[in-house]
């Protein structure tokens, strides 16, 4: 029992320390504004967790970032750095709009399945491009995904402004947003099932996200496919030596990663926002996803509590604003958490190395003693 606890602690120690430092920094910022940090944090957590509608709001904030978190996690597990979840999310949301609009005559279940598949494939292909470039041309996926993010944004802006614009379809001049998802393709709101959710916009997409997390956990840790992906991530050379193709798994991991981000885009569109607006900026879910994956230790199930934390921060920022505290504090907290993780990932590695060195020295002494 104690061993198990020690193990769990060794895994979650870093994220926990990072989160504590994040909240401490946030507390300092709150104090700077002349407010009481304890009161503010109580408002934050009470607003996000204490009532059913409040928790519902947190749930719908969790949905997209759990998807992008899973996307980042699976790429990390293969030793890749997919910071293109943004772009994958964007192309998939446009694909979801297009399918929901052109397929609105189809039976509901069939249409929903089609939209989710299209979202997964659109995101997967967008991620797959980076995977292909990495596997075949050795192009760093960080650079290629950054480029693909912006290409995706402008492509989406074009598609939304012209081919998918309701005005253009009606023969008028272009508008800044796409057609609206038809009623038949919208995900069910939780309040339609459980009236207690009241004003909250939570939708069944959260279950799709949770199921995806479990499926990803199963694939990564219980199947050969996942084993190969993780082996490439741990040591690509050893994997190649053992007959596991680095190129194949790189492409596969980027496809799955992009697919998950894409699923997030599709679910967000048919679950919550129902249209895509023209935008000068990327939505930001992909970057939050990086934080989610890192705090969740790149473990699909670890992403769930981690997404909950970031969901609470996002939802709670409004509660704090109501209490007269600048809402940016929650973003500062997320930023600081990430800074600490970036720095401490390696404090851990250094710690392990020191331990290994001591271990070796102990062994040597033993051998010399013999």
């Amino acid at each position: 029992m104690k061993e198990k606890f020690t193990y769990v602690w060794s895994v979650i120690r870093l994220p926990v320390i990072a989160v504590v430092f994040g909240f401490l920094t946030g507390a300092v910022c709150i104090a700077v504004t002349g407010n009481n940090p304890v009161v503010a944090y109580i408002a934050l957590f009470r607003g996000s967790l204490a009532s059913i509608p409040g928790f519902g709001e947190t749930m719908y904030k969790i949905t997209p970032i759990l998807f992008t978190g899973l996307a980042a996690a699976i790429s990390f597990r293969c030793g890749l750095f997919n910071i293109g979840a943004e772009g994958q999310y964007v192309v998939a949301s446009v694909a979801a709009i297009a399918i929901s609009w052109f397929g609105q005559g189809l039976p509901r279940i069939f249409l929903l399945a089609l939209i989710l598949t299209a979202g997964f494939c659109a995101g997967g292909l967008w991620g797959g491009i980076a995977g292909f470039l990495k596997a075949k041309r050795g192009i760093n996926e960080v650079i290629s995904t950054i480029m693909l993010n912006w290409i995706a944004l402008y492509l989406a802006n074009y598609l939304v402004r012209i081919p998918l614009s309701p005005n253009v379809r009606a023969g008028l001049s272009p508008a800044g947003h796409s057609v609206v998802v038809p009623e038949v393709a919208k995900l069910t709101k939780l309040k339609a099932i459980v009236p207690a959710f009241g004003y909250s916009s939570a939708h069944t997409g959260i279950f799709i996200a949770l199921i995806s997390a479990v499926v990803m956990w199963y694939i990564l840790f219980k199947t050969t496919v996942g084993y190969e992906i993780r082996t490439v991530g741990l040591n690509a050379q050893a994997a190649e030596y053992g007959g596991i193709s680095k190129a194949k798994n790189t492409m596969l991991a980027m496809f799955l990663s992009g697919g998950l981000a894409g699923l997030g885009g599709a679910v967000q569109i048919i679950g919550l926002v129902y249209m895509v607006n023209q935008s000068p900026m990327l939505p930001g879910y992909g970057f939050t996803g990086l934080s989610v994956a890192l705090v969740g230790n790149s473990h699909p199930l670890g992403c769930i509590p981690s997404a909950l934390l970031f969901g609470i921060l996002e939802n709670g920022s409004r509660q704090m604003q109501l209490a007269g505290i600048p809402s940016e504090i929650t973003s500062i907290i997320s930023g600081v958490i990430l800074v600490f993780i970036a720095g401490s990932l390696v404090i851990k590695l250094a710690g392990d190395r020191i331990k290994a060195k001591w271990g070796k020295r102990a062994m040597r002494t033993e051998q010399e003693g013999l």
Partner: protein
Amino acid sequence: MTTAIFISLLTSAIRLATPLLLAALAGVYSERSGVVNIALEGIMIAGAFFSIWFTHLTGSAWIGVGAGIVFGVFTSAILAAIAINLKGNQVIAGTAINLLMTALTAFLLEIIWHRSGSTPTAPAMLTTNPLKFLEGIPLLGTFFKQLTPFVYMAFIMVFVAYFTLWKTPWGLHVRAVGEHPRAAETVGIDVYKTRWVCVLISGALAGLAGATLSVGTVGLFREGMVAGKGFIALAALVFGKWHPVKTMLACLFFGLCSAANILAQSFGVNAPTEFLAMIPYIATILVLIGIVGKAQGPKASGEPYEKDEK
């Protein structure tokens, strides 16, 4: 008429290229020494914000620019500490800095001016041509009239960067550290110190790039005003193959794309301008693939260096 349009296109291209150029040169310094700088965006945000704040405080735009540079250096020190001493992941560190600076500037905006969105207009800005005598040149006078001090600084910095990195012993050290730090250390180069200096220079230039956007353009700070320019600068850096002069050409090309885009919109041309906006990114990917010449970055870029403890 055509000449006027051509000149306005050219000046607008150069003005749009200026912040990109400064930020891309910032990237050249840090990546040549082996530190990937995804944080350019965040450092530019810091530079844009603090230069406006200090212009408000002191009434002098030049002091504002200095503050932008200083805070750019502070911001890049976070990256340096994580990337060099803590041997952390440079991409995560960069992303973290981008998020942090977006949040921090919005927070300061809120507590200093009690408003969100943008600061009030600063009492001074640097949007006019500092070299008045150039305006007397026939035809080209109107061209020079629209250049800001930042334009001159950016182009001077191209040659400073080229000279320091390619024509001095120190520059050779920097490039050696970025290619093969172990070999560099064997011949007595201090890898950590070289990287620290380069990352701090990078911070100064990116901070200046941020000031270009605020003090040098609109005279105020607006949330989201950097809008991905740090990432376009990264693209220009790759497109320019990590070389200052080629990077300058890349920035001018990207600036021309956006200028053409703006011109097309102002003339009400109903073209899909989104595709013009995509060109820099597509061109960069093509360069990476090797269709338009092969881009090969510094070998050790992005890899933390472990000193040999013997």
